[in-house]
């Protein structure tokens, strides 16, 4: 699922040739310290309604008021714990368990942070590349704040722009797992944890309960058993989002440690739940 091909393609010998141009002993630019680059971000143009990422204020707030508002308050009846664990300023990486096929959990988490956090912070959703090829959907995802999970994008958002990125490190494997394996986390993609370490930002793990029942995978189709079968519309399961203690940037946790932490909290939440639909 990853999209880091363009950068890490070391098999071409050309990479070495090209970097010869930028060698330090050439009397030239010492590769600019990243702090310097951070100060060179483009200024905001007040007349514009789109960000450089293609995010559109207008469309986002429209979707937020209508579809997301309905899902959040009436359909999933989202309950949030520990939103104050998200830092009030500076970059951060939110890592969540991925469940169900529709990106409804991502939207609900983003809305929870925007509505419930004292600073009303914006969340950028790291998406898989499969979205971008799809006409219409790819465009819409970009407009409401989806960003391709490319390492360069993650770094720019978290380090340079000091923004919050939400990622699902289980990836597509998490979205496709069958109902009977719900709340059993697949292995975590270490890229996101590495990106956070590189950007030197804290990681806020979070556990989402309810998403796996709202759009469950009940079976599979196709020659390779690849096509998941699922109800067409999300079912009104009760959502509960728990933001865990932030892990400071200096700790440098492994992906596996974070997975275990989220898993532990999920099991506890599942145990405490009385009903899938009423919470």
């Amino acid at each position, binding site marked *: 699922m990853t*999209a880091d*091909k*363009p*950068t890490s*393609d070391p098999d*071409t010998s*050309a*990479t070495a*040739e*090209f*970097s*010869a*141009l*930028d060698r330090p002993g*050439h*009397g*030239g*630019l010492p590769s*600019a310290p990243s702090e*310097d*680059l951070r*100060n*060179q*971000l*483009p*200024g905001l*143009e007040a*007349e*514009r*309604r*789109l960000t*450089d*990422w*293609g995010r*559109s204020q207008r469309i986002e707030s429209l979707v937020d008021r209508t579809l997301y508002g309905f899902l959040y308050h009436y359909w999933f009846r989202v309950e949030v714990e520990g939103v104050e664990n998200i830092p009030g300023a500076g970059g951060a990486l939110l890592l969540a368990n991925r469940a169900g096929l529709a990106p409804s959990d991502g939207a609900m988490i983003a809305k929870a942070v925007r509505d419930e956090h004292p600073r009303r912070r914006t969340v950028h959703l790291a998406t898989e*590349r499969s979205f*971008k*090829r*799809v*006409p*219409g*959907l*790819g*465009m819409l995802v*970009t*407009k409401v704040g989806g*960003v*391709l999970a*490319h*390492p*360069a*994008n993650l770094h*720019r958002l978290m380090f340079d722009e000091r923004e919050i990125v939400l990622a699902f490190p289980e990836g597509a494997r998490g979205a496709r797992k069958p109902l009977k394996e719900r709340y059993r986390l697949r292995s975590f993609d270490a890229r996101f944890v590495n990106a956070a370490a590189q950007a030197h930002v804290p990681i806020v793990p979070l556990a989402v309960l309810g998403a796996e029942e709202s759009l469950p995978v009940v079976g599979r189709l196709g020659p390779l058993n690849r096509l998941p079968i699922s109800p067409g519309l999300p079912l009104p399961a009760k959502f509960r989002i728990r933001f865990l203690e932030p892990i400071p940037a200096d700790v440098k946790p492994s992906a596996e440690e974070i997975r275990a932490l989220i898993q532990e909290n999920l099991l506890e939440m599942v145990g405490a739940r009385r009903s899938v639909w009423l919470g």
Partner: protein
Amino acid sequence: MDSKRILITNLSSWWGGRLAQVIERDPNVETIIGIDSQDPKHALDRTEFVRVAADSTVLRRIISAAAIDTIIDTRMVSDPLLASPGEARRVNVADTRSVLEACAGESVRKLVFKSSAHIYGSSAEDPAFFSEEMALESVSGGLRQDLVKAERLVAEFSAHNRDVAVTVLRFADPLVGEPGSSHLMLLGLPVVPAVLGFDPRLQFVHDEDVVGAFTYVVRHPLPGTFNVAADGVLALSEVVSLLGKPLLPVLPPWGFTFAVAQLRRLGLRVPVEMVRQLRHGRGLENRRLKASGYRYRYTTRETVLQLRAHQRLRPLLRSGDGAYRYDRELEEFLRRSPSVRSGSGGAERVDPDGDEPTEAELLEVISSLDATGLEQLREHELANQRRRHVLDALEHNLARKQDPGALN
């Protein structure tokens, strides 16, 4: 090291000519020589023009005879509409090789090489902002492959000639400049077509910043590769609404490549690069050049607004580009003849008759222009005819634009 003796390739291109005009004004530069296989299209004061092709033997002779220390290579074809694929390949790969051969082992200490952001391609897996070290995927065919090959040659040259400081500038698409480039064609249409379901992010660069970046790297020691693109990445829908035109998403998202192939069979060339950009667009990381001290004068949005002013003014100002015609005898006379008084020498801008709009025509259109357009028209008027009524009307409208309510 200061650049005092400069050679510009492709002098007759829009960029080559503009660049020479700017460098001429620098008194520290002793000599400017421009080569091209066609006559220059810009009026030049002291740039010496040699009409030769980019051939390494000829170039080497010029370089050693004039003790050239800096070469600005503006030759690269970076727009698929400006040359046929075969022509582009010849210029971008074969000619690059000859120019580099000519530079090696001579007096040259600095090489500024014009490349293009097309080297990054355009696809769904792209990062939102390409930075300089991301260009090296092996690609097959098209303009992008030519650019990759050319830059590889330059990198090899740099590795073998460590005493030459090599700067590669990768330019975003300029919006004003060489007429006939693909973005100008697309955005010049009365209704701009788009691919259904895609709103690509586009980034441009202002022509002044193109020339500005060239002169900046000539004056400062900045070896390495730099993206040159204005601040701000705009969605196509945003660009088109800034231009005040309707956007029509009529191109089908599927089967478009097939349709393009059919069009090509009919003799209509729709470049592959353009098709890709209409889907996925491209954003560039421009902070490296900024960190080295260069300040962009225009953002992408301002560049688009300037294009709008141009599009509205073009029917009025038919002069401009075609006004100057190179005449070797005349240039020789103006530069060398003892009869020419200093100060009046050099090529003088001759205003063609008849093409200037009349006063009544101008007054009619002034009220519908925006601030950028007004300022451009004022500069044009000041430089040429200085008609008082026109200038008054311009001033009046400008004041009102800048401070609405003051005059009402």
